[in-house]
């Protein structure tokens, strides 16, 4: 801590510059997708797949998942793990740009003999506001890609 303060006092501009540069580098390397659930219980086991790889399997209410992903086009899928013919498979595509954050709200729809999990794109302002007081979890997919 003392060393940090001394460094900051002696080389303030260099430290800030290098830190900003590091953050910028990180931001430019990947995009962030925030998938969140506001309310309601998940009565069916539905996975969210990124490029056919299951990434999220449980969606507790009032929770968000921050997924770090490399830029480019990504395919997302919501798919039932059990009773698959009673759970609708939904396919989505999203083009990611480095440094950007994309907010997707996950909404369950219960029909008679058919359950669906919808992903709804939200603006940054709305998404940031709605996830402000939620529990969060970070999933890093940049290394697995």
């Amino acid at each position, binding site marked *: 801590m003392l060393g940090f303060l001394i460094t900051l006092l002696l080389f303030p501009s260099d430290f800030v510059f290098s830190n900003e540069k590091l953050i910028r580098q990180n931001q430019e390397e990947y995009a962030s997708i925030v998938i969140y659930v506001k*309310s309601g219980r998940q009565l069916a086991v539905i996975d969210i797949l990124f490029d056919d790889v299951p990434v999220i399997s449980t969606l507790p209410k009032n929770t968000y998942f921050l997924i770090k992903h490399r830029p480019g086009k990504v395919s997302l899928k919501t798919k039932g793990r059990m009773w698959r013919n*009673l759970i609708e*498979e939904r*396919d989505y595509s999203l083009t990611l740009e480095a440094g950007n954050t994309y907010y*997707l709200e996950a909404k369950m*729809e219960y029909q008679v*003999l*058919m359950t669906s999990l919808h992903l709804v*794109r939200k*603006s940054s302002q709305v998404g940031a506001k709605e996830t402000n007081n939620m529990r969060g979890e970070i999933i890093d997919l940049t290394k697995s890609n």
Partner: protein
Amino acid sequence: MIRLLIISDLILLMVLISSIACGQVIDLDEEQESLTQDKFEKSTMYYISPGDFGYQLGLRNMYNLIESSLEIEPNDFSRFVGFGMGLKRKAMYYNFYAAFQPFTSPIVKTSGTLRTVADFSTVFAEITAGRAIISTDRHNVVLKGGLGLFGNEIQVRRFTTDSFDLNRIGIGQGTAWPLLEHYSGTYDIALELIPHPVRTLAVMASFQLGYKGSIGSPNWMSPDAFLFNSISDRISMVYLRMSLVISRQY
């Protein structure tokens, strides 16, 4: 049996539909802000209610008379099957619904070789209007009120269980009472829990808890004979209705 087959075929069809209802890729590059449900202002709905359960608190005068005279205890619990149509305009719901008893179970009392059988059957229809008073992310709770018609029929017959010669079919072996009918106008108050439709054609489950009460207290009648000393009765029924709603959105 035919109804059961139709219902099972419908279930099978829906299972098959649900398994193939996929494949379209949804582009998330444009912000949606909401599911499509918020865009729908109008819906036409078709109700199929295989489970409409009623508990009769009224009709006490006739039920007491039957119980004391014939020693038959009428069943207060009834199961109905119903069909209906509905319109939704924003938060307002307008419905027509009619129901009948598909499985009437006769009440039988046997005393020695003398058997008394009473068949009870009920039909009703209603027109209601309602408004969504609570709207959550997924469901509407609709407060409904309406008017309807409620009909009850009771057929009592008594016969011996002695052996019967089929060559004497023209003579018969028992006694039948005139068919007893009671028709009453009703008012209806109910709360319905119904999901928001998310797509243009949605199949949803709705639950409705309600009460039907008589308008006035009509007398019992008979189409077979003029009834002397007829008695009046009132309808008072609590019901729980579970419906399958096929909803088309505009």
